[in-house]
């Protein structure tokens, strides 16, 4: 399916002033994309296009950078982002089982979003809380030392 041409869009004042501040700093693109994602929770195509015009960086180059890094999201994520840590410690202690259980509970695949837009599911490399393995995070909340049968209860808290 061919994507429609992106259009210039109005940015939030917060983002406008951030771009203004960073416009002339060398190597600003990654930082500006971080800000875009912080504001919109992902990087909408129209916003990327607008940023491209403001920074004078071709859209193709911006997409090259966006798609290179795992952190940047091109699709709108669900209201609650559930991340399953798949660092080595979590993997050994059953992180893959937590991921399977969440896929079953939410009926979505990894990197999927539920139909009602409530939840997105992703696996992440390492949260850096290996002492609490295995763990998941729901938005900013961390649930560590987590047995598989407790997952359903946690998901219910956010429904």
């Amino acid at each position, binding site marked *: 399916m061919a994507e429609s041409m992106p259009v210039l869009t109005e940015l939030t004042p917060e983002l406008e002033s951030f771009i203004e501040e960073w416009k002339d700093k*060398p*190597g*600003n*693109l*990654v*930082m500006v*994309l*971080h800000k875009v994602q912080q504001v919109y929770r992902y990087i909408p195509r129209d916003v990327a296009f607008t940023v491209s015009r403001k920074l004078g960086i071709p859209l193709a180059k911006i997409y*090259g*950078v966006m798609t*290179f*890094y*795992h*952190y*940047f999201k091109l699709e709108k994520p669900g209201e609650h982002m559930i991340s399953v840590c*798949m*660092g*080595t*410690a979590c*993997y*050994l*202690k059953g992180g893959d*089982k937590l991921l*399977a*259980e969440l896929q*079953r509970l939410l009926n979505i695949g990894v990197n999927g979003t539920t139909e009602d837009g409530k939840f997105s599911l992703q696996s*992440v*490399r*390492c*949260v*850096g*809380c*290996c*002492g*609490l*393995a295995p763990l998941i995070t729901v938005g900013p*909340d*961390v649930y*560590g*030392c987590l047995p*598989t049968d407790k997952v359903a209860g946690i998901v219910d808290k956010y429904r």
Partner: protein
Amino acid sequence: MRYKNYVLICGGTACESSKADEIYRNIQKELEANNVHGETQALKTGCFGFCEKGPIVKMLPDESFYVHVKPEDAKELVEEHIVKGRRVTRLLYNKPDCTTSAVASVDDIDFYKKQVRVVLRNCGFIDPEDINEYIARDGYVALEKVLFDISADDVIKELETSGLRGRGGAGFPTWRKWMFTKNTESDQKFIVCNADEGDPGAYMDRSILEGDPHAVLEAMTIAGKTVGASRGYIYIRAEYPLAIHRLEIAIKQAKEGGLLGDNILESGFNFNIEIRLGAGAFVCGEETALLASLEGKRGMPIPRPPFPAVKGLWGKPTIINNVETYANIPAIIRNGGASFAAKGTEASKGTKVFALTGKIANSGLIEVPMGITLREIVYEIGGGIPNGKKFKAVQTGGPSGGMITSEFLDAPIDFDNLTKLGSMMGSGGMIVMDEDDCAVDVTKFYLEFTVEESCGKCTPCRIGGAQLYHYLEKITNGEGTMEDIESMRKISRAMQKASLCALGQTAPNPIISTLKFFEDEYLAHIKDRKCPAGKCQKMIRYVINEKCIGCTACVRKCPVNCITGEKKQMHVIDQAACVKCGECERVCKFAAIVKN
């Protein structure tokens, strides 16, 4: 001490996630309610390291060590410990074997006994959000010395005497990097801190930045003065919000205190530090890829030489050191390189921070002198393997490293020994595995990671890695052949020799290492179609034997409803539908479900 009592609450990410902040606020409230806030100071500190026992609260001066503290425990802790001077026994740390009564203080805890905290000396001791606490612990003394008392050559000489080697993985002598940059003529030079801690299973850099951010700022400023740079960048993972937050505070306070920015301590020297965020690419731990990312580009490596020390960020000479390396430097300048070199082995001086995780009783962050044996780490500090399981191996060096087996438990741990054993120091992840872990499966896990993280620029890494993963998948699915092993060896050699950067060159290491130490496991997968550890799901079958009494516990637990049978009759598992999650085996009280 200014106060009669101190209450130190761990504010590292792990404890913070278990409500450390609420505990801190409750303690403050209780101190005021009991009118002892004038003589007692409550502090939120950096990581204590014993993350598994968190949230942790430590009392000074008597060093009582409270674990798994909940916000509602604040009242009792203050009323009993602070006001009445009685320890709250139920919250004190207990030895895992429970043979002794509650352990009273930090000195009695095995986890800490063999540790030597140099880099982490302030972590868990000071409030990282208050520059005065860092200064009170001799902070910025080294910077003052470098600005006013000693020359750039003296700094490099101290580093050489110390024998400090890079803590990020490769172990390159730090003084040489600095010397190259210093001796390269340029109108501009840069100082970069690599805080893109990508190794899954290592989190020392995060803990240092969260617990003692000024140590890194001070060291970077010292580097700037030494080589003649006026700008520094900290490249940090976006996934570490707390560390970023504390760095921002530290930079602001250092600037206000005249310790960073223009005309530092009125010496005429200018140095500014900016935080730049990584965006989740393991390859950016490689220095040329990191620089590309700092320049706002895709983080892909370029061939070296020229090395960044000569031609780095925007083509200018650039020092890139890792967080832990920097954190060592203020103490080296302050106390002299010889004092640092007094610890460690012949070629690996000082201490090293390790993240001890996996199948280990005491999991957490530890700092030990180089040369300590793996046995001491696993059995004395780590408290051995839990649940009566047998030790299998320790993976060091993460996806670029290899496994160290029980026969090498007594080998001293340092840069060169680990390399000799077919592994590497890496950033300091130490993942303990027990008999339930399958060597082939873990190797596949690492390869999946490096394939995913390969930037795709050079062919050996992009295609070689994918091929290796393909063979491992075949083997763990029970479809492997002996030729696959030979092919893996060949591809591994090609990748080691021909890949552009360390990611590709080291990606085959887990395979080479496991083929050396656990070839029998590969053979079992290939010849007997069996996974000895019972981990590779495609090769295991759960079956119900005659011990089944038909209690239906497994039926209720099965996530895919593949167990059938009448009540009080023997049940059956539909093998075609079974997803091999093992839940039925765990829930069965009669040992009637077995893996084979």
